[in-house]
């Protein structure tokens, strides 16, 4: 260690003298020395902007500035933006306009915006994009950030209270007081001030830091591990290898527990976790893992499913004979009679489509803390998790503890999109190290490590064939899909089923055959990502439908309307569709997006295309067999009746459930939204919920909350009825008042009734739980995947400009029409749609994790793996169509995942419309478009044939 240097910083107006290592970045000094954790570390490489602070008036990346270089500087961090307890107008505008979701990028966005307006109070849109181009937001809040900067003055004098008002979702008519309103985002104020403590922001007494060593070879056996040098490094407290952890196989699905906590004999991909250390600080831990020497005997490795399935391929999981041929999961479905279906078709199209290995890329890297309690065999774990319940369950299994002995806390999560569903070696190693040391241990992935850990989108190799009648009616669909599963199962069993089960939910398919193979390869394991398994096959089908429509001379929207799913239908694969306004989404898209005026009328290089999709509103069955209700809630009315607390262990990952669920509670109770407190997501405080995956929380969590609220309300109404001298059944509660429905002037304050209730019989508590209707789905193997109480539907229209000389694509506009049932909160709803479009845009045009021929990743960062920036975001118009789902709370379904699957096809079809090139391999890069244009020129120009 070198000599520390004493520097002085004026931070948020206060002079601070700190002794720092010369190598310490300002970011780490702010977070670790000055405890200003509002400044976030998303990449520590200058690529994401989450670490932005203002230094002497200029926005800079604090991760690329040595603290010593900032000596003497005036620094403003997010903690210094609000003055005297009053939020800055930018902060208020961000909260009010929904310019944040997970909030992890938000401090950086705000500081960049602040520096901009300090220099230029009236920036143009171009100037805003220029100034915030270095601030990535994976949640896709860009359009709202622009709006917030432009309209910030409007909010200068506003408070963040939510005034009761009518339902304000413009496209839906409802008589609700809280549902349907864009109330103040519950987690908004803390996220715009830096107060929200994400897992990596937590500082526990005596806490130490862990780090994991990943394999350097893609496939091999471990010959020897030498940890002596690491152990000898001053500051290192413990080093563990596979021998020091429970000897157990774990994973996601009980049918395929195929992972080791740390590799014992075999490593299966570059990055496979091999050893871990704990040290007094992060830097020492980072140095120590580099000192561990591992000798491997390399085995032949395979990097794509076809080679992995070859007879001569080395087995990746020889320990289990089920995985012969490296096939992890095989699906064979045959509904109806496809042979006959194709025979009846007038027109058949068949094509291979190849997807990409996209990574969720949440801006917050995964983090976990474990602490063993002194009181009994008890363990507390903090984890940036989308599904804390499953982690709790898995930790209990691995460490042979009752689940009740584990306290699972989920701090705010800086984005997940599927990446943070499962138990990782972070939690597992932290628990082992914490036990060895008797101290809390924090473990984090670096940006590079999280990409290596992956669990991103399965790359799918899709052979799809569709037959239609002359009028466009589908007669048969057949698809054979190879999914590149990577080295472990993760959520992959479900992925390979979803890739097949969801196609028949959108269109009526009379004959359908699906052959799915999820195949092991020596790459990072693929898992669940937004729209789980669905976007790539959906893109294939949407592309083929357009091709068929062209061949038959039909309008693309027309062919979709002809086959569109209808309400109260049982699909060919036994899924029960209840509400369904898919046709309405198509018709509104046709009539309101400019489709009729633009389709076929645009100049060369400009195109308009349509894509459709949708998703489940929660899975019909849990990941492991369990009789627990899927969502559970508890509501406690406070003593004075002026507040209630809502206890439910759901996972706010940016999608807005911490706002939507309190809204549902308030609506059902009949109180203002601002009366609701949300208890922390902590297994000691709140009953379990399965988590934020399969787009389940609004419907399932919402139903549990509604039921709990109703149970509490009954008790209050009873007292009110007595006070008013009438039957409680004739009472209505709304906006904090309880009144006789027929005689609204006969009323009592909600709080007064609640106070009386408490005074008489103590706490008023209501509980609720939700489980999907029993017996969902068919009887065939795998019939459970795809079942859901309700399905969403969406049509998206995209407009692009293609540079015919360079192949560059600019997505200019999206008009989206979603059937998500009742909209609970318009701002979070439309924010999800916008975010899904922007993420889908990245998946279609930009993203792919690329590996070299040794299996090492070429772009495990945000420099080579490009996700959309503020300048890539198109103009977006999002609409909710009128729809009501009987199984949903107040008629609601889902929006978070269903908004993504339409996007890939919409963009691909718009590109085809613009230039006649159909790229069948994702991402659709400029280079591939140029190749297509060249091929087209050789074959005689389509543009000159077909276009005026």
């Amino acid at each position: 260690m070198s000599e520390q240097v004493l520097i002085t910083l004026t931070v948020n107006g206060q002079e601070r003298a700190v002794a720092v290592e010369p190598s310490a970045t300002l970011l780490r000094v702010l977070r670790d020395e000055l405890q200003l954790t509002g400044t976030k570390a998303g990449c520590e490489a200058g690529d994401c902007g989450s670490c932005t602070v203002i230094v002497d008036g200029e926005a800079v990346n604090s991760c690329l500035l040595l603290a010593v270089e900032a000596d003497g500087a005036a620094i403003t961090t997010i903690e210094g933006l609000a003055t005297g307890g009053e939020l800055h107008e930018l902060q208020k505008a961000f909260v009010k306009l929904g310019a944040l979701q997970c909030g992890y990028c938000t401090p950086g966005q705000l500081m960049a915006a602040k520096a901009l307006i300090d220099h230029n109070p009236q920036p143009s849109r171009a100037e805003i994009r220029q100034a915030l181009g270095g601030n990535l937001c994976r949640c896709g809040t860009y359009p709202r950030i622009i709006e917030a900067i432009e309209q910030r003055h409007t909010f200068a004098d506003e408070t963040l209270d939510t005034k009761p008002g009518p339902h304000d979702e413009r496209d839906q008519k409802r008589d609700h007081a809280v549902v349907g309103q864009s109330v103040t985002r519950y987690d908004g104020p803390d996220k715009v001030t830096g107060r929200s403590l994400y897992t990596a922001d937590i500082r526990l007494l005596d806490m130490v830091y862990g780090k994991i060593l990943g394999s350097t070879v893609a496939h091999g056996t471990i010959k020897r591990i030498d940890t002596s040098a690491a152990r000898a490094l001053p500051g290192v407290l413990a080093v563990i290898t596979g021998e020091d952890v429970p000897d157990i196989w774990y994973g996601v699905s009980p049918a395929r527990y195929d992972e080791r906590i740390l590799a014992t004999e075999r490593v299966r991909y570059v990055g496979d976790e091999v050893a871990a250390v704990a040290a007094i600080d992060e830097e020492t831990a980072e140095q120590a893992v580099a000192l561990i020497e591992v000798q491997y005997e390399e085995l032949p490795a395979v990097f794509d499913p076809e080679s992995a399935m070859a007879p001569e391929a080395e087995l990746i999981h020889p320990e289990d004979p089920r995985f012969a041929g490296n096939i992890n999961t095989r699906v064979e479905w045959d509904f109806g009679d496809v042979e006959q279906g194709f025979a009846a078709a007038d027109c058949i199209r068949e094509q291979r489509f190849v997807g990409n290995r996209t990574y969720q890329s949440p801006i917050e890297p995964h983090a976990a803390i474990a602490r063993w309690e002194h009181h009994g065999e008890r363990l507390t774990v903090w984890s940036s998790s989308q599904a804390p319940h499953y982690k709790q369950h898995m930790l209990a299994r691995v460490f042979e503890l009752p689940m009740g002995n584990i306290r699972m806390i989920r701090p705010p999560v800086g984005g997940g999109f599927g990446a943070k569903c499962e138990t990782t070696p972070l939690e597992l190693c932290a628990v082992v190290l914490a036990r060895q040391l008797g101290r809390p241990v924090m473990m984090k992935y670096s940006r590079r490590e999280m990409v290596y850990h992956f669990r991103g989108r399965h790359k799918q190799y899709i052979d799809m064939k569709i037959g239609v009648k002359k009028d466009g009616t589908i007669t048969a669909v057949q698809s054979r899909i190879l999914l590149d599963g990577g080295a472990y199962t993760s959520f992959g069993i479900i992925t390979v089923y979803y890739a097949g089960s969801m196609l028949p939910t959108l269109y009526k398919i009379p004959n359908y055959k699906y052959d799915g193979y999820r195949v092991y390869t020596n790459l990072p394991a693929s898992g669940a990502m937004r729209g789980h398994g669905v976007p790539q096959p959906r893109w294939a089908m949407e592309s083929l439908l357009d091709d068929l429509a062209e061949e038959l001379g039909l309008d693309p929207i027309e062919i979709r309307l002809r086959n569109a799913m209808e309400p109260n239908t049982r699909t060919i694969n036994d899924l029960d569709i209840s509400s369904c306004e898919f046709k309405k989404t198509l018709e509104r898209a046709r009539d309101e997006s400019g489709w009729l005026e633009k389709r076929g009328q645009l100049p060369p290089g400009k195109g308009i295309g349509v894509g459709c999709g949708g998703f489940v509103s929660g899975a019909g069955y849990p990941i492991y067999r369990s009789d627990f209700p899927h969502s559970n809630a508890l509501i406690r009315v406070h003593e004075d009746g002026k507040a209630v607390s809502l206890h439910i262990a759901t996972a706010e990952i940016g999608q807005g459930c911490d706002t939507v669920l309190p809204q549902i509670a308030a609506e059902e109770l009949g109180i203002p939204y601002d009366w609701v407190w949300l208890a922390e997501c902590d297994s000691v405080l709140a009953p379990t919920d399965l988590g934020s995956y399969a787009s389940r929380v609004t419907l399932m969590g919402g139903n549990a909350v509604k039921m709990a609220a109703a149970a509490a309300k009954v008790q209050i109404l009873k007292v009110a009825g007595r006070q008013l001298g009438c039957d409680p059944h004739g009472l209505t509660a709304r906006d904090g008042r309880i009144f006789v429905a027929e005689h609204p002037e006969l009323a009592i304050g909600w709080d007064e009734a609640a106070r009386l209730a408490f005074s008489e019989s103590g706490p008023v508590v209501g509980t609720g739980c939700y489980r999907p209707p029993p017996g969902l789905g068919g009887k065939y193997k795998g019939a459970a995947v795809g079942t859901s109480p309700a399905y969403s539907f969406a049509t998206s229209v995209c407009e692009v400009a293609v540079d015919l000389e360079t192949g560059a694509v600019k997505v200019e506009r999206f008009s989206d029409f979603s059937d998500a049932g009742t909209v609970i909160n318009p701002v979070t709803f439309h924010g999800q749609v916008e975010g899904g479009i922007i993420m889908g845009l990245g998946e279609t045009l930009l993203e792919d994790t690329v590996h070299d021929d040794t299996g090492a990743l070429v772009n495990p960062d945000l420099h080579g793996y490009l996700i959309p920036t503020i300048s890539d975001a198109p103009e977006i118009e999002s609409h909710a169509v009128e729809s009501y789902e009987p199984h949903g709370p107040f008629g609601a379904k889902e929006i978070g995942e269903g908004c993504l699957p339409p996007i890939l096809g919409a963009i691909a079809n718009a590109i085809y419309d613009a230039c006649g090139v159909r790229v069948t391999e994702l991402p659709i890069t400029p280079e591939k478009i140029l190749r297509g244009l060249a091929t087209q020129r050789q074959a005689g120009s389509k543009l000159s044939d077909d276009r005026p």
Partner: protein
Amino acid sequence: MACRNTTYHRPQSIAEACQIAGEYGIRGRFLAGGTELLIDLDSGRDRADQLISLRDVPDLCEIRIEAGELRIGALATLSAIATAPDVVRALPALREAILTMGGQQIRNRATIGGNFCRAVPCADTPPLCIAAGARLEIVGATGARTLPAADFFVGPRQTVLDRSEILTEIRIPVPPAHSGASYQRFSLRHGMAVAVAAVAAVLQLDGDEITSARVVLSAVAPVPLLVGECTDLLVGRKPVPDLFAEAGTIAAAAAQPITDLRGSAEFRRELLAVLTPRALNEAAARAKGEAA
């Protein structure tokens, strides 16, 4: 981030900086904005344990017009250059080139000297400077020297500088009347993405005749590539699109691109055939006073 056993120096003069650098040889690195260096040290692509900060060395950030030259101190940040009135007036294309680089936070710290000295093949400021005939001022432990910017680059991440030498200033002749410049760059994302290929062009016209022309390619060769054949083709001819297209073909042939994550060699050549005429057309329009 940067390696643990690092010593930090903060010299107060060029002489002192050079002297410290001379003393430590390959163990030392000058630290300017740090936007390259910190990442290189962190990733292990570069190793050094003596950081010699240039932040207190006086006069290295100045931007001014003097003796017919636009003089830019090597420590001037990209933001400072992009907003300097002298730059906006004399060489607006340089501002445009800079605004394609990184994000605002990067531009606020990154220096033009660092961009030159790190010498990555896709660096965005050297091509235009070379095309505009820039000279570089260099001071070392054993003296000072001046050299054409075109001669500065040796290979990827390699320059003619010895360990004790500091790039102090970039001097660009103020473009004469009837001249124009353009920088055309292709990247895979709208912002915050390095160039896949880029072309800088500077033209001077006399009436309807090109009297001087320089085309420099970026990200398609180990170093920024001044294409002499383009100059030969263009000088003495009329500035017409067909001629510029021909220059594009020549540029594409002259390049030595590689295939990497961002694109194939073939794709890069195709881009050059498009970007070169675009750059020449814009430069010509500006020379004629048609565009800002």
